[in-house]
Every structure is written in structure tokens, then in C-alpha cells.
């Protein structure tokens, strides 16, 4: 089942823009790109929440920092994606290392709140950068440049996003099966026992937090390219809430949880906006229903149906 599902999924993602093009819906290539970028950010958050067992409520900060890194570098004339995108991930990684070093001293609700606090600090810090747009954000002069692909072309950019998302999903699956991922699984289920076994739990969790932060930074770099703007709103707490909602909606700790969550939430928004003025109301109702009746999210629903 799974062996067929994954290549099929990838094939569908690759064929999609041609179908949209053939049916005169090119506009939706942009929509799909945006959804997949959020899917990447949510997948990164899911690595922290679902694999590492840490409920972080400030992930948008790393997402936003990635966007700003690309925008600021471009502002200084550096446009090469192979430079700026890794730089975005690196900046986000450094930031998440700092945040994690302090936040991981706390547990549970306090961890939720302290990660939120740091994200808000970064939000206000970015707002104060008047040289880089302040409240209004920093526009990108163009898309980042790659030797082989023409990223300014929406189709090429879409393929780049698909490739990076697929790579990230594969990477996380690989990590999960490796020693590091097994250690995380142990920490998630019984942290005290892992300590007693002699695992450096703090450093393992920190590494998990940093990896998740770095991938979110990469997603931010893509987002800046997609919208042509690094906006402070990318770092605001409601954005962190949205990412967390995607993860919970899709399925915490499920490999495709982030992807499913972004797909369903943003897809639902897009669809409802087309048919009703008050789409947010129905999105809310849908989320409430999922929260009430699908404790393991959409991934749980799908798995449940397959097993049952």
C-alpha cells in the first residue's frame, strides 16, 4: 500500500500543474506552491512536536527569520539561491539553538509559553528594523536565482518547492529510523527512563529543535520568494498558531501530518472562500469537529479506516 502511495503522491504533485494549465487554472499553481511551502514549515514543526514531543508555540519565528534572511541578502545584492536558502536555514538554526538552550529547561505549558515569548521578541525585533521595512516588511526585487531552474517562472518554482518538500519528508523518515530518531521515540514515550539509561536527553531534544527550526527557515526562504515579500506577520504568534493547528489537524507525529494539515486547512480556506463570504466560520466549525472527533487528526482517520 505505502509502496505505491508515495510514488503516486509524488507523481500527482508533478502532474498537477500541467493539469491546471490544461484546464485554464494556472492561477492555482501559485496556490498549490503556497500550500506546499506551509506543508514544509508544518512538517518541520511536526518533527519537533510529534517526533520530539515538544509542543513549541513559536515556530513562525524561524519561518519568518528564513524569509528575512533571503530578503535582506537580496537587498544587499546576493540573489543566488544556493547561498541564500542555506543561509536562511542556518540563521533559523542558530536562532532555534539559542531559543532551545533556554526554553528546554522548562516543561509542558511553560515550554509552550516561553517559546511563544521568544517568537514574539523576534517579531518585535524585526518590526524595529526600519532599514529593512519595519512594519511594512521587506520586498524582494526578484526571485532567488538558480543555475538550472528559472525560479521566476511559477512552474519552475513550484517544482523546486515540490523537490524540497519531498527531500524534507524523506529526510525526516530517514532520521526517524536512525539511531537519533529511535532515541527521540524513547524520549517522547518516557523521558525519565532515557535519562536513566544514560542518554543525553537535553542535547538530543535540542538537536531535534534545531533541525525543525532550520527546515522552517528554509520554508521561510521559499515563502519570501513566493510572495515577493518578507513580512513581519510571518513571525506573529497567530502564524505559529496556524502552523500548530496544521500539525494537529494533519496528525501529530504522523509522517505526513504536516502535509495533510496544510493541504486540508489551506485547501478548505481556498474552497470555502470561493463559495461563501464567511469562510472562516466554516473553517472554525470544521476544526472544532476534528478536535472533537478525530483525536489523531486526519492521518489518524485515514489509518483508522484502513485498519478497520
Amino acid at each position, binding site marked *: 500500500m505505502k509502496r505505491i502511495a508515495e510514488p503516486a503522491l509524488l507523481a500527482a504533485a508533478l502532474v498537477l500543474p500541467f493539469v491546471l494549465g490544461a484546464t485554464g487554472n494556472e492561477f492555482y499553481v501559485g496556490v498549490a506552491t503556497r500550500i506546499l511551502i506551509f506543508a514544509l514549515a508544518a512538517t518541520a514543526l511536526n518533527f519537533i*512536536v510529534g517526533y520530539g514531543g515538544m*509542543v513549541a*508555540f513559536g515556530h513562525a519565528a524561524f519561518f519568518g527569520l528564513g524569509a528575512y534572511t533571503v530578503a535582506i541578502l537580496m537587498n544587499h545584492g546576493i540573489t543566488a539561491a544556493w547561498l541564500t536558502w542555506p543561509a536562511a536555514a542556518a540563521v533559523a538554526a542558530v536562532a532555534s539553538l539559542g531559543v532551545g538552550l*533556554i526554553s528546554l*529547561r*522548562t*516543561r*509542558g*505549558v*511553560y515550554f*509552550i*509559553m*516561553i517559546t*511563544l*515569548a*521568544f517568537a*514574539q*521578541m523576534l517579531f*518585535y*525585533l524585526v*518590526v*524595529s528594523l*526600519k532599514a529593512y521595512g*519595519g512594519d511594512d516588511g521587506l520586498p524582494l526585487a526578484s526571485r532567488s536565482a538558480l543555475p538550472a531552474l528559472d525560479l521566476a517562472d511559477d512552474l519552475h518554482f513550484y517544482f523546486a518547492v515540490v523537490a524540497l518538500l519531498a527531500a524534507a519528508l524523506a529526510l525526516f523518515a530517514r532520521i526517524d529510523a536512525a539511531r537519533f530518531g529511535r532515541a527521540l521515540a524513547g524520549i517522547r514515550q518516557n523521558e525519565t527512563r532515557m535519562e536513566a539509561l544514560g542518554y543525553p536527553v537535553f542535547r538530543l531534544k535540542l538537536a531535534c529543535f534545531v533541525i525543525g527550526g532550520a527546515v522552517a527557515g528554509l520554508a521561510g526562504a521559499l515563502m519570501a520568494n513566493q510572495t515577493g515579500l518578507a513580512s513581519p506577520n510571518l513571525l506573529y*504568534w*497567530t502564524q505559529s*498558531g496556524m502552523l*500548530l*493547528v496544521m500539525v*494537529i*489537524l494533519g496528525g*501529530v507525529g504522523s509522517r505526513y501530518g504536516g502535509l495533510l494539515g496544510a493541504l486540508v486547512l489551506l485547501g478548505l480556506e481556498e474552497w470555502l472562500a470561493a463559495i461563501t463570504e*464567511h469562510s*472562516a*466560520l466554516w*473553517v*472554525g*466549525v*470544521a*476544526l*472544532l469537529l*476534528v*478536535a*472533537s472527533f478525530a*483525536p489523531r487528526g486526519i492521518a489518524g482517520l485515514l489509518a483508522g479506516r484502513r485498519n478497520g
Partner: protein
Amino acid sequence: MLQLFLEQALNGLQFGLMLFLLAAGLTLVFGIMDMINLSHGSLYMGGAYLAAAAVERTGSFALGVLGAVAGMIVVGALLERLVLRRFYQRDHLAQVLATFALILIANETVRIVWGPQPVMLNAPEALSGPVEVFGFSYPAYRLLIIGVGLGVAALLYVLVAKTRVGMWVRAGAANREMTEAMGVNVPRLFTAIFALGAALCAVAGALLGPLLAVQVGMGENILILAFVVIVIGGIGSIRGALVGALLVGGVDTLGRALLPTLLRSLASNEVASNLGPALASILIYALMAAVLFWKPQGLFPARA
């Protein structure tokens, strides 16, 4: 300079007291029911809108506030009975999802009823002017807010510290099962607490309405401040909420007023006016991070 400081200190007190009204309900719900309620800010928004509607209908500010309080008590109790109660036993993630959904629903409902534009809520005519205090003039309406805030805080203190219901609430926060075993109907107590929290939100929403804009989304901005307050104070502690609220209100207001001035004496004008407001906003989050770093359970942990 002294006058500026005093005036800003009063502003900080006023803001802190309003934050306390929001944080008091939030900390009880959080501490006792172990429930993260992101939609608490929506109750505040609901209170402001109801007050605006009631003032317009009755022409009386006082009646408007009372109407908002009565309305939000009903809304709060219904919300608890029909929706939130299902999530007490669930994990925090499910609570985040559900109450985030409630924010979306609340915002859109308000938009449907009152439209997307901000609505007007004016301070009562009689209090629109300034009065003399400590040798300088200060808006009378803000003094009213301080007065009401102090009064409600005192009432809450008596309720929680001196009455049997208050003892149940504290006992319930520390050990729910034992409280039930002593004969307290905890589910009913929860509904009452939630309704009380909604009433306090309504007071804050109605009183702050004339100062801040009554608009969709007003709850989200202040919600996070309320969370900061209760985390600083210690989740579940009313005393902690009061101390935390006054700290956050004071630090935020004084920081905004004084930091740019302070920076100007250290750096260029331009840097100061750019950096000042941001630093002031960051201040309270830095405060919270610092508190959690040294006291990971907040200043007044409710559970020993």
C-alpha cells in the same frame, strides 16, 4: 519628568488592572481545569461588542457595561457546558486546536453581526474631561477604570481568599479528585468559574472599548499579554495574576513612555525612535523568559 513618570505609572496601573481582569479568569480555567483556552480573548471582544450595542440601545454607559456582563455570563456558561467541557481531559494540543477554532468562529460571527468595520463605544459624557490628581490633570475616565479595576480586584480577593467557594476553587486547583471526594460538585464549580471569567472579560472589554478600538481581532492581541501575565504569576494563582498583571502593565507602559527618552540620551534620535517601541514591546517577553528561567513555575506556583 516626574509628572510624566507619575502619569505613565497611573496609565500602567490602569492597563495592568484591565489585564488582571482578563488574566484572572484565564489563570483559574488554566490552573484548575488544566485547559489552554485561546478563545479567552474572544470573550473580551464579545464583551466590548455587547457593551457597544447595549450603550447604543439604552444610551447609558453603566447599563451598557452591565448588559455586556450579563450577556457574557450566559455566553461563557453555554460555551463551557456545550463545548469546552469535552476538552478538559484531552491533551493540550487538542485544546489548542479546538479553542483556535473558536477564535475563528467568534471573529466571523462578530463580522456577520456587526460588520467588518470597528464600532464606536464612547466614554460617558460626564467623564470625558480631565481631573486634577497629584497636581496634574489626568483623564477622568481612566481614573474610573482604575477605580473599577481596584474594586473588582478587591472583590475577587475576598471571593477567593475568604469565602468557602474560594477555598473550593483553590482546593480544586491543587487536587481536583480530593476536592470532589470532599463533596464539591466540581463540574458545576467549573461552569461557574468560567462564567465568572467571561464576566471579567466583559468588564475589561467594555471599559477598554472607548480607549482601544472595538474591532474584530482585538482579542488576539491582548490574549497573549494575558497569557504572559499568568505564566509570570504562576498558573492557577489569583495573587500571581494580580502581581503579574501589574508588572506587565507597568513595564509595558513605562517602557513605551520612557525607553525612547532614555535611548535618546544614549544614542541618536533616529535610532532611539526606531528601537524604542520595539524594545518596549520586547521588554515584557524578556521579563517572562527571565522569570521562567529562574522560576520555571512562575512567581507564585499554585501546585506545590
